């Protein structure tokens, strides 16, 4: 396995991971803001 391919794979995966991280963070915060099932935690 050559390094070029491995770097390409990791760069490709990193982009997808970043998308997932941002989407889940936004979902978590939005759901918390809209009091999902009556559960609400105050941030700071």
């Amino acid at each position, binding site marked *: 396995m050559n390094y070029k391919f*491995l770097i390409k794979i990791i760069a490709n995966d990193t982009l997808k991971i970043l998308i997932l991280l941002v989407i889940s963070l936004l979902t978590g915060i939005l759901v918390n803001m809209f009091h999902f099932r009556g559960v609400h935690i105050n941030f700071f």
Partner: protein
Amino acid sequence: MKRFFVYASDPKSLISIIARIVIGGLFVYASIDKILYPAQFAEIINEFDLLSWELSVLSALWLSWLELFVGILLIFNVWARACALLLSGLCFLFILALISALVRGIELNCGCFTTKIDLEHIRTWGSLWIEVALLIGCVYVWIIDTVYDYNIKKV
């Protein structure tokens, strides 16, 4: 034995599909309780004594949804390589957190699958072994997907 390894290294083989479904399913199952009870999960994260309360709350809100999304994607084999890499990283972080808790003598439940705190059955070591098993599974999925994509030269 060699034939088994060849079989297991094919992402389309039954063993690989089962590995993806089991790992994805476990993470989806683990996320549901955390999504329903984020405050309790934040308390569990806070017990590790690694993050401030504000960051524990943020992590509780973040991690539960992340586990749900990544678990579902892994089950349906969408972005499986990236998901396996992300889950490997998460498992590695959980393992480090558990080891740091053990070293500092903090006994706790990891909150991996439930947010109910059962003080009579605290299993820090048990939680650690579960995380190690999950890490091995995630790395296995990542490796077979990477090797498969390398063989067909697809990124």
